[in-house]
């Protein structure tokens, strides 16, 4: 396996986990199901907070979309559209940077505004942070 390959598969794996988590949280929100959560942390308070939607769109839906796009374009990289490899790497960088910055904002809201944390949200922040770090490396390697 080439060096870039493991990075690619790491992004794919983390995006898949992130996508699955967002789907579960979105399902729980839409069907009013209680989210499985540890006792010491309050997922319900975070996931139903006034900050859990943007103009009526659940943040979990945006997360799901972000991970899905990351998953698809990374899978395409080096296969279907070889010509656009640089553009795909740039797009992955841009999407993961957006996700990373917004996750930082949401973590701030959890810790300092809601004073409640949600293990799902923190896991998602960790996933997008790792994806972002990988894409920085990836973009740096491709710099002219």
């Amino acid at each position, binding site marked *: 396996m080439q060096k*870039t390959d493991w990075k690619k598969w790491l992004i794919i794996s983390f995006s898949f986990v992130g996508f699955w988590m967002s789907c579960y949280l979105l399902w729980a929100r839409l069907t*009013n199901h209680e989210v499985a959560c540890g006792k010491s942390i309050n997922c319900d*308070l975070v996931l*139903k*907070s*006034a*900050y859990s*939607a*943007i*103009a009526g769109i659940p*943040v979990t839906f*945006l997360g799901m979309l972000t991970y899905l796009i990351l998953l698809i374009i990374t899978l395409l990289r080096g296969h279907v559209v070889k010509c656009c*490899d*640089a553009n795909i*790497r*740039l*797009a992955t*960088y*841009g*999407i993961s*940077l*957006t996700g990373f*910055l*917004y996750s930082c*904002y949401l973590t701030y809201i959890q810790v*300092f*505004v*809601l*004073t409640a944390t949600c293990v799902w949200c923190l896991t998602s922040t960790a996933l997008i942070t790792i994806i972002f770090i990988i894409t920085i490396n990836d*973009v740096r*390697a*491709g*710099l*002219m």
Partner: protein
Amino acid sequence: MPREISIKQVLIITVISVLIVLILVGLNRPRLTLNVSGEFNYETGVTENGEPYKGSPDAQIAMILYSDFVCIPCGDFADAIEELSKEFIESGKLRIIFRNFAHYSDESPLAAQAAMCALDQGADKFWQYHDLIIENRGIGSRAYSKAQLSAYAVQIGLDTTKFNMCLNSEAKAKKIQEDYDDGKKVGVTGTPNWFINGRKYRGSYSPAKLRRVLNNLLENGK
């Protein structure tokens, strides 16, 4: 790996990403329509049992609402009720009777106690205080600390000496616990829980869903 990405491209993508995040953060602010002015276009009062209400006592529908100030869906539901207040409360069709069910966090009982202390200074003051502390829920950590609750009392012109004495009163704190126990006895399992004609409804309803429930009750009695 072919080197085909320029610094300029990376910078452009970075700026676009930051702009998108700033827009998302700007859109992600809680927007409530609660009435913090204290000017109500409907009747407010206190029931024989000492519970605050808003709306006409002759209203066709009486909703008994069990709520907790810390619970975010409770705030959303209060907001939904406020949105429909012109249609149902001002028109004399709906009366809301408020009961505390302080269970959500360690700040819940104190917030409930503070609201009842505001009630001691008038039903209008209760509802104004209710709306103000819900409007500010989640703003800053420890939004319902004793100091913060007193500051809200100052903001709406309550007699702060009386308010602070009440906030430190053990008898009042005991009453909040009794209200919680009473809620459990009648089957309250969380917040918001609300009862109309003895039927229990759970959770926060959107204004549209609440309107459907209320219209059904007005038209068909169920």
